[in-house]
């Protein structure tokens, strides 16, 4: 696998769309390309952020934050 193919596969990898047989080859290439590979995979995770930002924000129930903060305070006191 050359680096261009690795880049293609990386974008599939970060969204969990590689098939098991592709994943094996991908991991081999990942080791082969080392830091360059890790840096590129890191960049690809920007896709997650983009997909989330592309959605219209949804309103959460007002009680959720109260429950969350109560749990956090209880955890801190424990």
């Amino acid at each position: 696998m050359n680096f261009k193919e690795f880049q293609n596969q990386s974008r599939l990898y970060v969204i969990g769309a590689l098939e098991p047989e592709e994943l094996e080859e991908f991991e081999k290439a990942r080791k082969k390309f080392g830091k360059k590979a890790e840096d590129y995979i890191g960049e690809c995770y920007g896709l997650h952020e983009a997909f989330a930002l592309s959605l219209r924000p949804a309103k959460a129930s007002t009680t959720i934050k109260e429950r969350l903060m109560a749990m956090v305070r209880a955890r801190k006191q424990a």
Partner: protein
Amino acid sequence: MVPQLQPGAPSDLELMNAIQAEDADALSQLYDRYNGILKALILRVIHNEAEADDLLQEIFMEIWNQAKNFSSQKGKPLGWMVTLARRRAIDGLRKKQAYARAEERLQNETEQQPDAWAHNATEEEIVLSDTRDLIRKVITGLPPAQQQAIDLAFFKGMSQREIAAKTNTPLGTVKTRLELGLKKIYDGLKELRGEL
């Protein structure tokens, strides 16, 4: 690519650092900033308002508990939170064995709204930042078949084979659609980063 902040407001990274130091107020601020985005993501996966709220609470609790595992060297706080939320939402979908029911709902919604991303980009929406509009334009600019393949992979956690079976499309075609679509989005994001 984060929403615009008020002048003087702490950055996401500053909030994460404070959460790592167990500052509950920082979590409160991070919740106010991102609960809408994460809830939208969860809803897109599980299509159930009450379950999405419960999961949102669990995810922010996990952010609090796992904050020490966050490293800015590996990415930005929002990316980390989205990755965590997506994983939890897809796990939740499978764990509750609600996949079939959600599929049915998704099918109904897809029939009513063939292009889910395009549906989101209506004039009725609240005003979004330029960045978000631009991201949406990149995604909605893809051919519908590529959007659908990416939607099923990212928001439903489907494998290429599952997408092929669901859409009655050859596996090779699904792979090509995903590769082309993701490359266009990735390249579009790189251009956006240059412009912003």
